[in-house]
């Protein structure tokens, strides 16, 4: 019973079946958007959505049955590799030196040769020829003859095992990652520090810069200058950017995103006075700021900014979205505490305004521009702790080493059967190796020629 279960688990057929099943369901997982809201699934698939969610096809890669499939494939790989490993190890370290002339000659690269030297001398010649080509020879006397196995690159037999070991180490790494991995997003404001959860240290955002390409439109880089604080002391300062994280005490801090509070943008406003003496003055300010205008004794205050102005039936003003579809600024223009103009002005409609205040109807406020290229206010930093990562890299190394060995370090074995006939010897030999037969053939021919030359 246990034997038949083991045989089932270690069969390559199971591996192939599992691979095909995993491939098919993985395709499904890429066709159905993963981890969306319930509403979105109903909108997209209607009545089918219930079924998809019940089958966990909407979060396939983390579902129990998908993980079970991967686990079964892992188990299959382990048993398959182990059951094949012990005969391989025996073959490597304690090979049974057995050879028959008939079976040797059935091999493609084989031959038979009569040498004019006795058994011992011929055996020495064979060993020398093998050593000249870096083969390690093993010898055993049997009956009236001698059997010699010459081998090299024995590691090649284990290439596939190393690949499988690498994959198992990677899977162990992913298991550790998913069980103990931790990540958090920090919304850091310039000049302020925040504790990194579970990390026992704080980080402060000293600077946050956005670099633009010369076209002033495409972002070239986001750089956060972070200072790590431990027990109230600054420990280290570093600039991080996308593709250049900061690692500290097992935590890695990544530049993940940014938040631009559009409502605190720098606005360009112009105050126009049509009464003589005519004058125009341009000022830049942020919501909440006031500025005194030259020589007129006027003060311009920017109370509020809405990027996409809308007023509902009740007169309540808000933004429909964060996009600059209808930017509007609420301003007041005052002199000695008395409001001359107050209300809303619009960037898209400079001629139109919703202002009141009669005393200075010859003075107008125009919303000229929203200053481009202002740097964002918050830097979003991802802090991650993942103890599985070192195992992943070890596994990747084993995987690649194993592949190289499996494909490009093929084991070669040449088997010799020497049969003494008085003071002459009949040599029968065959070259064995599953990969790169052409190179093996040419090496065998060389070996054979070296022996022939001694006759």
């Amino acid at each position, binding site marked *: 019973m246990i034997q038949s279960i083991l045989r089932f688990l270690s069969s*390559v057929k199971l591996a192939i079946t599992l691979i095909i099943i995993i491939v098919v369901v993985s395709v499904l997982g890429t066709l159905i958007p993963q981890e969306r809201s319930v509403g979105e699934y109903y909108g997209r698939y209607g009545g089918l959505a219930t079924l998809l969610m019940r089958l966990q096809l909407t979060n396939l890669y983390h579902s129990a049955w998908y993980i079970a499939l991967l686990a079964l494939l892992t188990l299959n790989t382990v048993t398959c590799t182990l059951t094949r490993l012990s005969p391989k190890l025996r073959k490597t370290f304690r090979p049974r030196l057995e050879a028959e002339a008939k079976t040797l000659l059935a091999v493609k690269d084989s031959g038979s040769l009569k040498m004019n030297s006795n058994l011992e001398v011929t055996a020495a010649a064979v060993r020398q020829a093998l050593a000249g080509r870096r083969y390690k020879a093993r010898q055993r006397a049997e009956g009236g003859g001698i059997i010699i196995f010459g081998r090299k690159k024995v590691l090649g037999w284990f290439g596939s095992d190393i690949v499988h070991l690498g994959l198992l180490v990677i899977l162990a790494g992913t298991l550790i990652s998913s069980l103990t991995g931790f990540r958090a997003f920090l919304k850091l404001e310039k000049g302020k520090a925040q504790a990194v959860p579970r990390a026992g240290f704080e980080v402060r955002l000293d600077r946050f810069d956005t670099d633009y390409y010369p076209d002033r439109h495409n*972002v070239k880089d986001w750089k956060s200058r972070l200072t790590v604080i431990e027990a109230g002391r600054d420990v280290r300062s570093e600039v991080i950017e996308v593709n250049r994280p900061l690692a500290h005490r097992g935590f890695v801090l*990544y530049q993940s995103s940014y938040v631009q509070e559009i409502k605190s943008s720098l606005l360009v406003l112009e105050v126009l006075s049509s009464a003589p003496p005519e004058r125009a003055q341009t000022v830049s300010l942020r919501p909440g700021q006031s500025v005194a205008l030259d020589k007129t004794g006027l003060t311009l205050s920017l109370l509020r900014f809405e990027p996409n102005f809308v007023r509902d039936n009740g007169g309540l003003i808000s933004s429909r979205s964060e996009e600059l579809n209808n930017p509007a600024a609420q301003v007041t223009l005052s002199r000695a505490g008395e409001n001359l103009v107050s209300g809303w002005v619009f960037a898209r409609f400079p001629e139109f305004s919703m202002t009141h205040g009669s005393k200075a109807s010859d003075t107008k406020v125009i919303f000229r521009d929203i200053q481009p290229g202002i740097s964002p206010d918050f830097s979003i930093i991802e802090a991650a702790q993942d103890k599985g990562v070192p195992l*992943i890299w070890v596994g990747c190394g084993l*995987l690649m080493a194993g592949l190289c060995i499996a494909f490009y370090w093929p084991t070669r074995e040449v088997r010799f059967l020497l049969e003494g006939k008085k003071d002459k010897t009949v040599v029968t030999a065959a070259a064995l190796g599953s990969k790169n037969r052409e190179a093996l053939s040419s090496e065998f021919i060389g070996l054979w020629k070296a022996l022939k030359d001694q006759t």
Partner: protein
Amino acid sequence: MSETTLFKVALALYACALAIYLIYQFIYQFRGKEKLGLAGWSAALLGLLSHTAALIHRTVASGHAPFTNMYESLSFLAWACLAAYLVIDRAFKIPRAGFLFLIVVLALMLLANSPLMPKEITPLVPALQSYWLWLHVSITLLGEAFFAVAFITSLMYLAAASREKKGGQPSGLSAEKLDAISYRCVAVGFPLFTLGGLVLGMVWAYKAWGTYWSWDPKEVWSLITWFIFALYLHTRLVMGWKGKRSAVIVIIGFLLALFTYFGVNYLLAGLHSYA
């Protein structure tokens, strides 16, 4: 010379090579045929040199790796496919695959050159500013190029096998040899694809996104492609499948690799939506 000129010179030379290979394949059946094969190879090599110059020109002009949008990466894939073919042809002498191969390369080039693919140099978004871009993409595409050679030789295998089954003489390349060449191409392509697509992809993802695997559609499709070639190796090396069934798996594997490269970008949204 400008990048466009160099690209067009390469295109013209590839067309010449295709014409020579077509003559080699279908018309000229007399003595000196090998020389014709060599002429096709040389024309293709000259085209490759001009193409290389075009890629270098673009790299210098843009200041980043020449595979950051669809035009660039198609052009690079065509380059890699032809380079892989020229290497394999030197090693195994398969001029009969020449015309099929140049059809693939020319198709990629013409697609890259079509108005569908914007050609202007665009600034690199912060996520792509990394030397891992060079390693990850170039090695993956090179692996896929060897899969393309395996694909063509597998198609030729199927044709040769059915011809031999009907009792026809093996013309030039036997089905058995094509089967072996196809395996050798996978033996080059599979480690490259594993290294570039999966291993270096994970390394870069970890550096840029803070996680080495996110089940992004491109990642899943790479894994699917990898699984199919793993299937190919297991059925062939352990279960002894050869010939027709092996060839069919390689063909499926290459089509999956093509979808991973091309289809995912247009049909499935995800983290890899740069091009």
